[in-house]
Each structure stands twice: as structure tokens, then as C-alpha cells.
């Protein structure tokens, strides 16, 4: 393995690497967003206070059971297998999904299953006093969640969500089994053509590292931004006295 070879491979194949990185990043970012939405939805459904026995509560219970099954299945099986099952089962029924769309479905649903637990944990960890204060000024459950609880949950689970994004950037590599042209798949093609496996994958490794590093830094920045400044402006109401 030599440095010159790496440069040569890069020179000859940089559009393919770039395209692979682009697809990887696109799948990771979009499916993390999809997953976050799914996660919030399930987290909210699971924390609706059980009212008195009624038809609505019954429906909610059944619905929540289905959601629990989804979470268990997607957390309990490898994503590589999920990708195969989703793609080829649908294929067997004559539905040929675009491979990129299939990738979004698999990674999105997978992330959603993990995010559901993260969001639920985030909601449960909010101090009971926040709910009580919201109720005491007459807010209903929906208002309490939207204006008071969820904004705090979103902030609190941001580090965990960032973790999911980083994991998704790396784990998209398993999608090569359904021939999604992400970075791993592209690298395999490049290496298959030039027989320089070590050098080609060293490049891929570096690209993955750069992507995850930048993602982590950006998320850290976002956290800081959400927290707002440490100091606050003191409204000068006694200006006339001076």
C-alpha cells in the first residue's frame, strides 16, 4: 500500500467516491429526519394519559400494540436482513422499489424504532412539575405537549439523535446488499476494477470519518445555538434616573 497509489486511485475515481459519499449522506440525513418524526409520533402516542374506559382508549391501546410490535421487530433484527426482506419481498409481489427509496424506507423505519424509545425516555424524564404548571394555567394535554414538553424533549434528545445520524452514516454501508450505490458499494466497484482493495478502502474509511466528524461538530453547534446565550439582556427600566 503506497501513498502514490492512493493519489492515483483518487485521481481516477473521485467522481465515483463523491457520488457514493453523496448518496450515503443523503440516505443518512433524510432517514434520520424520517426516523425522528416516527419516533416523536410513537413517543407521543405512548404517553397519552389513559382516560376512563371508552371506545377511544380501546382504539388507542390496539394502535399502541401495533406500534410496539413495529419497534420490537425493527430493533430485534439486523438492518442488513431488513433491507433484503423489504426489497425482495416487495419484489416478489411485483413491486420494484427504486433502490434509493428502499434504502430510505429501511433506514428510516429502523431509526424510527430506536427514536421511539429515545423520545419516550425524553418525555418521561421531563419533571412532573412542568406538566402540572401547564395544566394549572388551563392547558389541555395537546397544548402542554406542543408548547411546553416537546420543545424541552427535542433539546434533551438532540445528542442521542446526533448519535443516530452518525450511526446511520456508517450503517448505510450494509445497503450495498441491495445494490444501493452508496459509498461502500462504490468503493467495492472501484476496488473490483483496479484490484487495489487496501488503498480503495483506506480512502472510503477516511471519507466516512470526515463525514461523521463534520456531522458531530455541526450537531454540537446546533445544541449551543438552541441553548441560547449564557447571559441575558437586563431591561433598563430606570434609565431616566441617570
Amino acid at each position: 500500500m503506497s501513498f502514490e497509489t492512493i493519489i492515483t486511485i483518487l485521481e481516477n475515481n473521485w467522481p465515483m467516491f463523491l457520488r457514493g459519499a453523496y448518496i450515503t449522506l443523503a440516505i443518512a440525513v433524510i432517514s434520520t429526519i424520517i426516523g425522528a418524526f416516527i419516533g416523536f409520533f410513537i413517543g407521543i402516542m405512548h404517553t397519552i394519559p389513559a382516560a376512563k374506559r371508552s371506545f377511544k382508549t380501546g382504539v388507542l391501546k390496539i394502535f399502541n400494540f401495533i406500534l410496539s410490535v413495529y419497534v420490537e421487530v425493527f430493533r430485534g433484527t439486523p438492518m442488513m436482513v431488513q433491507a433484503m426482506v423489504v426489497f425482495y419481498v416487495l419484489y416478489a409481489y411485483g413491486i420494484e422499489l427504486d433502490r434509493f427509496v428502499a434504502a430510505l424506507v429501511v433506514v428510516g423505519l429502523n431509526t424510527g424504532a430506536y427514536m421511539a424509545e429515545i423520545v419516550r425516555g425524553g418525555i418521561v424524564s421531563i419533571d412532573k412539575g412542568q406538566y402540572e404548571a401547564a395544566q394549572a394555567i388551563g392547558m389541555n394535554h395537546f397544548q402542554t405537549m406542543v408548547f411546553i414538553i416537546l420543545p424541552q424533549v427535542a433539546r434533551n434528545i438532540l445528542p442521542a439523535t446526533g448519535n443516530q445520524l452518525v450511526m446511520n452514516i456508517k450503517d448505510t454501508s450494509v445497503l450495498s446488499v441491495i445494490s444501493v450505490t452508496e459509498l461502500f458499494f462504490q468503493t467495492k466497484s472501484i476496488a473490483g476494477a483496479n484490484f487495489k482493495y487496501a488503498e480503495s478502502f483506506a480512502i472510503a474509511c477516511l471519507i466516512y470519518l470526515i463525514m461523521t466528524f463534520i456531522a458531530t461538530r455541526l450537531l454540537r453547534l446546533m445544541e449551543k445555538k438552541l441553548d441560547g446565550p449564557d447571559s441575558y439582556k437586563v431591561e433598563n427600566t430606570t434609565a431616566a434616573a441617570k
Partner: protein
Amino acid sequence: METVIDIKHLSKSFGQHEVLKDVNFSVQKGEVVCLIGSSGSGKSTLLRCINLLEKPSGGAIIYNGENILDDKHDIEKYRTHLGMVFQQFNLFNNLNVLENCIVGQQKVLKRSKQEASEKALKYLKVVGMEKYQHAKPRQLSGGQKQRVAIARALAMDPDVMLFDEPTSALDPEMVGEVLKVMRTLAAEGNTMLIVTHEMEFAREVADRVVFMDKGVIVEEGAPEQVLADPKHDRTKEFLKRTLK
């Protein structure tokens, strides 16, 4: 005198444990009532039952001639008529001081943003916190948080202010600033129901003192009478312990 809240035969149990037993009690308009008693006597539970943060097991709470424990009663609307101040402040952590005082007015009472901020600033001025309107709760001291919490409750224009041990979680040097605000409110004729351990404060501002023990109201009356010349042994014993 006009009765604001009338409580009849109220009871509350947590499982086997009976916390409130047949409590009868009412608050008149403009009256300042202090609830005293040792911890576990049920005074906080009574206050929390009044705005239904705890669901009473039995009895009735009459507000505006209607029993709000009826199934079909609009609890959320009823709660807007009661201002609640908690021991642990419970300011909304995601909002700054001004937003804390606005959010309920805007989202629940559907006031315009302008009207809501004017009202919020008016009450922040009353509690002396208008300077800190841009601060987040985590940047404030306990006493400051509690004053904001009082302004938040007042901004809803409630009929009654409920205080659940408002100074119990404060450092001693911050108790004064909160009590001072409450004295002002009492002097302005606000209807207030206060659960407190501050006997001096109760003696000074209360129109009526209610002593509770083991889930029942043992004695109530003017502060001079209940605090200085109690009739019941249990009241005497409690006062001896606390006034030491």
C-alpha cells in the same frame, strides 16, 4: 360576602390511605386564607384537589354555582380561574421570563400577543422582575423564579390565587422578597389561599387561619384567635412545636 369556592364533604384517598376526610370549607371574595398544619396533614392535597391536580375521591367543589366534579365540566376552563403557585416554582424551562407569563394567556385565553405582553409586563412589574424579562429560568435565583411564577399566575386574571408552600424551597434570605410580593397582593384585595409554614406571615396577612391535622379541619378562625388562643389541644401542640 360572595363565595368564590365552596368545598363540600371533600375526601381523597391514595389507595387505602385517607388523606382528606369530609372537608368542608369555603373561600370568600377578597379573603386571604392561610392553611397551616404539620406535614402530612393534607393541606397541600386540599389545595391540589381544588384545582384538580389531584382528583378528589368524593364530595363537591362548587364554583359559580356549579359542581366542577361533574363529569362533563370543562376542567381546563375552570383552571384558568385559579392561579397556582408551586413550591418548586415550575417555570417553563424552554421559555424566558416574559414568554412564561404570555404562553397561557395566548394559547389558553386566546389573547393577542400585544395584550398578553402588556399584561405580563404589568405583573412582572408588580413582582419586580420586569428587568429580567429576557432571562431563562435557569439563570434566576429561587426567589426570582417564584416571583415570576406569581406573575405568570396573576397574568391569567384568576379569581383566586392558590399558593402551595411558596417559600418552602427557598433559601432563608430569599423568603422575604417573595413574602413581600404576597403582602402587596393581599393588601390589593386579591383572593388568596395559602398553604404555609410561615406563622408570622399568616398572623400578619391572613383574614382567616385554617388548621388541619390528619386530613380534617380541626380549627379555623381569625389569626389572633387560632394562633394566639387556640381551642383544640392538637392546635396548641402544633403551635408549641412550630413557634418555639
